[in-house]
């Protein structure tokens, strides 16, 4: 089960002040329901119910942010299709992910873009520096896994690239 995904959802809800959230991903069969407790006190903790593959409800112990470790699931701008296959292209650094060189510029890489080792696929900003990230492989982008402007961590899959 992808705990990192749930952690992200909870963090998003917390920042946006969202009390309840239902997610159903037909691609993976994952159903997530998150209800945060009423008062935003020091120890308010989310109540998380996860249904996976139609199984019974499995309440997760309250008060924990789930464990990290696994890579985030493909929940992004272009939802993953069941038939998609490709190699995950992982972020080489922590920072903010940008798909294009500027607000009005075309994205470096979208679904269908063919890339080579030297092709810039995105920019990751860290400490005010814009780092151009190269594909380092050849193939076709079959999925973009991160939204423009979203923070990414080391090792996080950014694209799926089919060789």
């Amino acid at each position, binding site marked *: 089960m992808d705990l990192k995904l749930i952690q992200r959802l909870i963090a998003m809800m917390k920042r946006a002040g969202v009390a309840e959230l239902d997610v159903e991903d037909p691609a993976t069969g994952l159903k997530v329901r998150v209800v945060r407790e009423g008062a935003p006190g020091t120890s308010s903790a989310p109540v998380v119910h996860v249904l996976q593959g139609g199984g019974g409800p499995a309440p997760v112990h309250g008060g924990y942010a789930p*464990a*990290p470790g696994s890579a985030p699931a493909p929940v992004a701008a272009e939802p993953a299709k069941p038939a998609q296959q490709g190699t995950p292209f992982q972020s080489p650094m922590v920072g903010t992910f940008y798909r294009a060189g500027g607000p009005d510029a075309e994205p470096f890489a979208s679904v269908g873009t063919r890339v080579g080792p030297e092709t810039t696929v995105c920019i990751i900003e860290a400490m005010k520096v814009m780092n151009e990230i190269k594909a380092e492989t050849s193939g076709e982008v079959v999925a973009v896994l991160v939204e423009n402007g979203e923070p990414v*961590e080391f090792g996080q899959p950014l694209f799926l690239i089919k060789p």
Partner: protein
Amino acid sequence: MFRRVLIANRGEIAQRIIRACRELGVETVAVYSTADADAVYLRQADETICIGPGPSAKSYLSIPAIIAAAEVADADAIHPGYGFLSENEHFAEVCRSCKISFIGPEPETIAKLGDKVAARELARAAGVPIVPGSDGPVEDEAKATLVAQKLGYPIMIKAAAGGGGRGMRIARNEPSLVTGFHAARSEAQAAFGDGTVYLEKFVENPRHIEVQILADKHGNIVHLGERDCSIQRRHQKLIEESPSPSLTPEMRARICESAVKVARQANYTNAGTVEFLLGRDGNYYFIEVNARIQVEHPVTELVTGIDLIQQQLLVASGEKLAFEQKDIQFRGHAIECRINAEDPDKDFQPSPGKIDLFVPPGGPGVRLDSHCYSGYRIPPNYDSMIGKLLVHRPRRDLAIRTMLRALDEFVIEGPKTTIPLQRNVLSHPDFRAGDHDTGFVERYYGHHPAIPVARGEAR
């Protein structure tokens, strides 16, 4: 108070800082390397961010990775813990330039105290006794010989930028001084990129006494008593306690006052430790300041009832200390054993790997700070500490009994640990009588004696 603190560390101290933040109602961002991805303590953070692969240089020591994580997580402060970047003035400067509060002293203070010669000068200026020495760097063999003759042997040759016993030599006569001088210089040059050395009178078999300091940004400085860390193995502290069994109330008052003087002279803020050597003759000498929280800080927390990590956060955010020196009360006796995954049969080599069964001790008088659990795999990349086992009892003899009981209860199946050595020390009549010094472990248990230097190193 800060809204969101990033913890630039791992293991038990990362967990310790998360605990303090949670109790203060401060959000936490835990960064981690891929080697620590499965650690359970990460669940307690509000957000976790993977900052790099296992090797420290690319994760916990990578300033760009940590600052980038603080930026994307929108943290307004960074707690560096101990080790890693905790005494790196450049890191503290980068934090300042990025408008992120560094939870520790100012970069200038870190820099000054990090230079052993400058720290010595500072202590002297504060009127605090220092080990008689060369009064600054010794450039050549001739000067070294002259200074040594004046001070009398044995003599210690030390690197100004040193630490961890590197760039250190003991000379008991002139020929060994000459050899040691050149050896220390080249070792220091290789290890720290700075070959500057200085000389000190060598104090034989001293006690290691350190005083906990806490200072706010409004000029208030208090001490929280001393810790006796004389039980060491190759400069690695094994057992720490407070109060020290070797100080009279009058000596304690003087040594603690000296520590406050040093901190004041250094314009010190936040938590810090002033280290001293205590000779058999009752004289004490300043050695250095550790400009960060230390591994053994819980010993002081137990006897004072003051949460040092919470205090670090409070004073770093600009609050005034809520108590004065006279409000601090010392109660009972506390002992800490650092439980390391090391193999006593293989010269205490780290013994990382999976912990098959972990049943920690508990009950009255016992505190455990550990990030381990059954099934946890100790990564080979970092230090080998499994946890810090502490006891707090009304008297030293009772504390020793409780510690022995707790050590016996501790089930750690998988890696070898230091527990058998600590049991031996705690059962030794000399230790029980409080009659021990920094040479104790090597004397009784050291099959492979190292330089018997009285320096509690690094943490």
